[in-house]
């Protein structure tokens, strides 16, 4: 690509935040031709730039004096939702990774040293998405520590506000999905007892009038506690499906079209991580909340980059944090449904080769599933 071919006004705006001047130098030299480049040596400076300029992509180091990268990015998320956020850090500590998911909702989590090619490709993709995909409306972030909010979700179905608050959708964006206004009333009352089977009983399905697609939650966990906490948070206002294996997950996704997947990545890590990534690849509107017993930096980073997980919750699940996360996930999912272009923002790195075969086999079903979803 030749720098002169791109008009200055059309060049994507890229902001680097790093307290190491030499990194900034290197980045400047690397990207100055393609991007309108902004450099900041600390968080406050970066936020000033974000406030003034319509930044497309921000790349931040995590370990910086006064304000960490996660903090900077989570503020950017609120200030400028359309800015695609990337964390680039020399040492991935657990808090950084968890914060980058739950607070900053980063697009990618990159670790130093990062191959120049990968860095370049990632930033280019981010810039492209920032330009092409509409801006999301920020949902409530999951801050560290106990939450003071209630333990149950409050379903807000006034979906019309979604597009108004957010940035203007791209012209190419599909028209918002028609939604039944009556679903609000329907969902006022707890109507859906916890469901253990992947597939809801036939009469229950029949008795659920005009339930919009994607308003269920599928829980993929062998841990009853996870299911219980989710059920408690939902309080019967939405159907909760419990899947015990991948086949059930896919069956449930096909038949019930839930919008949120709560997946337990504690066990059979490889398969479930792979499944999570592949699901996101095929069903970008599906919002994933990962729960796990362990906090493994590498696994979490993988889930960010390949699975675009929306939240990461540690077991044992806190009712409050689970409720907030579910609420945000449902809101986010509705945005994605309304505006499928938005889902581009969650484009994932293609799943690594060597997926467990079972995932491949099962997920082949998903190929045609995408189309079903908006109907």
């Amino acid at each position, binding site marked *: 690509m030749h720098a002169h071919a791109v008009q200055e006004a059309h060049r994507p705006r890229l902001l680097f935040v790093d307290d190491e001047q*030499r990194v900034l130098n290197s980045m400047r030299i690397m990207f100055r031709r393609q991007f309108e480049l902004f450099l900041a040596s600390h968080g406050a400076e970066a936020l000033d730039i974000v406030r003034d300029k319509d930044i497309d992509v921000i790349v931040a180091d995590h*370990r910086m004096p006064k304000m960490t990268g996660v903090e900077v990015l989570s503020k950017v998320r609120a200030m400028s939702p359309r800015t695609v956020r990337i964390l680039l*850090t020399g040492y991935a500590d657990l808090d950084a990774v968890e914060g980058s998911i739950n607070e900053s909702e980063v697009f990618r989590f990159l670790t130093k040293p990062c191959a120049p090619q990968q860095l370049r490709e990632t930033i280019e993709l981010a810039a492209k998405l920032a330009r092409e995909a509409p801006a999301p409306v920020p949902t409530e972030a999951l801050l560290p520590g106990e939450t003071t909010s209630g333990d149950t979700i409050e379903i807000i179905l006034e979906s019309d506000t979604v597009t108004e608050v957010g940035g203007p959708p791209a012209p190419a964006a599909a028209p918002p999905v028609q939604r039944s206004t009556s679903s609000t009333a329907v969902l006022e009352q707890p109507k859906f007892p916890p469901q253990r089977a992947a597939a809801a009983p036939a009469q229950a399905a029949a008795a659920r009038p005009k339930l919009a697609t994607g308003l269920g939650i599928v829980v993929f966990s062998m841990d009853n506690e996870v299911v219980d906490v989710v059920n408690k948070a939902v309080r019967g206002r939405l159907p909760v499906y419990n899947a015990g294996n991948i086949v059930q997950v896919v069956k449930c996704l096909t038949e019930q079209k839930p919008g949120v997947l709560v997946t337990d990545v504690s066990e059979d890590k490889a398969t479930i991580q792979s499944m999570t990534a592949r699901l996101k690849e095929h069903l970008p509107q599906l919002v994933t909340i990962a729960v796990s017993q362990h906090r493994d930096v590498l696994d979490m980073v993988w889930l960010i980059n390949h699975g675009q997980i929306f939240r990461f919750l540690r077991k044992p699940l806190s009712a409050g944090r689970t409720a907030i996360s579910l609420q945000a996930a449902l809101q986010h999912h509705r945005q994605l449904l309304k505006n499928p272009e938005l889902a581009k923002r969650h484009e994932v790195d293609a799943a690594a080769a060597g997926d467990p075969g079972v995932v491949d086999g099962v997920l082949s079903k998903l190929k045609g599933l995408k189309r079903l979803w908006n109907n």
Partner: protein
Amino acid sequence: MKRAVIAFVLALAALALLISLALESRSLPVETHVAQYTIAGDLQRLDEDFKALVDTLEAAWMEQAPPGEGARALLGRVTAQPRQLPESLFTMQGSASQEARLRNSQETFLSALGQATALAEEIIADQTAYAAAVSFLRESGAAVIQELRDSRLDRQSADTFQLVVGTLDFAGKDASVRAGALDRLLVTLGRDQRVDSMPADFSVLLDSVGTILKNKPLIESKLKQLDATPVGEHAAALGTAAQDMYTNAVTRIERARLMLSVYAVVLLLSVGFIALRLQRTYHQINRANAELAVLNESLEHRVADRTTELSGTLADLKESQVQLVQAEKMSSLGQLVAGISHEINTPLLYLANNAELIRERLESLRDFVTACVGAFSIKADDFADRAAYQAAFVGALRDVKILLRDNELEAAIEEIQDLTRDSIAGLGELTEMAQSLKDFSRLDRAPIASFDVNAGIEKTLLIAKNIVKHKASIIKQYGDIPEIQCSPSQINQVFLNIVTNAAQAIEGQGEITITTKLYDADRVAIAIADTGCGIPEENLSKIRDPFFTTKEVGTGTGLGLSIVDEIIRSHFGELLIESEVGKGSVFTVVLPIKRPEPAEQTLGETLDLPELKEAV
């Protein structure tokens, strides 16, 4: 004890009762039975003999004959009867009153019998005399009278005659005869007796008359008396009394036997019951014993198991302790590595980037150089004419100029300069880091060495830079202090730990002040003060304890400060901690300048620093 006494007394009582019942039920001796059987016959026979005697005497009296031998034989038999009852009859089990009654009856009987036999003897004697007198009168009376007549004693003979006849009539039970007239005659004739001419038998005759007159009423009354003597009745009473006594005794024996039987049954039952109880108890004891044995055995097993388990646990604990100490080392190592890896990865990032960029820039420079070389290597000789040569040269120069547009090449050169400068600086940083790691660990140095404390702190701060730099600014107040003898790697670890803690105690931005000075003539003090959250007073005493931690579970093992304390104490130093909640803490390490006779072998072995060499 009390129960045993009661049981003993009960057993004695039972035995006493058994003995008394056995005595009670003892059979009567055979003599008693024999006596009982013979006494009735004896008494009856006696009674019969006695009655026959009386009859004989009365018959003899009626015939005025002497009683004769039959009477004497009967009397002999009566008197020959045993006088006493066998003593065994009295000693039969019986009441004293019965015995007294029996003895009484015997007394009565014996006295009656005695009287009767005495009377009978008298009667026999009297009757004999009487019969002799009568027979004299009958046989000799006429002769006497004849003699009197012969002697002419008429009156006497008449009187005598009258007397003899009258007497015989009297004797013949003629009731009309008056004994009084005969008595007068007898008196009259008695006076005549003195007459010399009286026959010789005359006085015998008078005596006989006298005997008859006198004995007849006597015998009659005696016979009546004898007949009235209640020998039979007394004998019968005696027999009855003996019989009663015997019956009573037998009855009592029978009853005693019955009681004994019942008692024996009761005793047997009791014994059986006790035996049953004993057997049950025995069974229980047996079972308990068996259970005990089993328990004992299983207990042994369990003790053995438990011992194995415990020794296993102990081994595990020791293992865990080692692992925990190791974990703490690894944990501080982890923090260190976190910082260091960031410190290393950042230069690495831009070094790799820079190298790539330099390569890219060099490519465009190479294109330019190639173009230049191409342009300048165009030689006039190669062209037919100058115009062609010029055209080629201008063309080549145009290519070069195209490459020179937008000042890209100058920019590229500038960038290459920048990038190489940064890269060299980055390499310098990495080198410095590697050097400080080496200095910090001192693995290539002697374990005990002279150590410049201020320099050590500098190295430590370099290592801890990434941990500290975002949290606090460092204020250094180094004093002029001599080098100390110590294990530099351990003391560096102490500094690192305290500095890291200080940084972690700070929320937001703060200050860490490091002061070194002489503490006294022999010791130096290193004070590390932070403006962090401080330590609550209740934790101050526990803060050196192993495993005490206020950090979130999983982030600290709580061994850090205990290891620090241990290192300092192994250096004969002191760790002083002052803290105020909300204001901050001061950790002061006091170390001797000259190491007292060191226990070198423990140093550097148990508390060695994590091997940074390997980690890095």
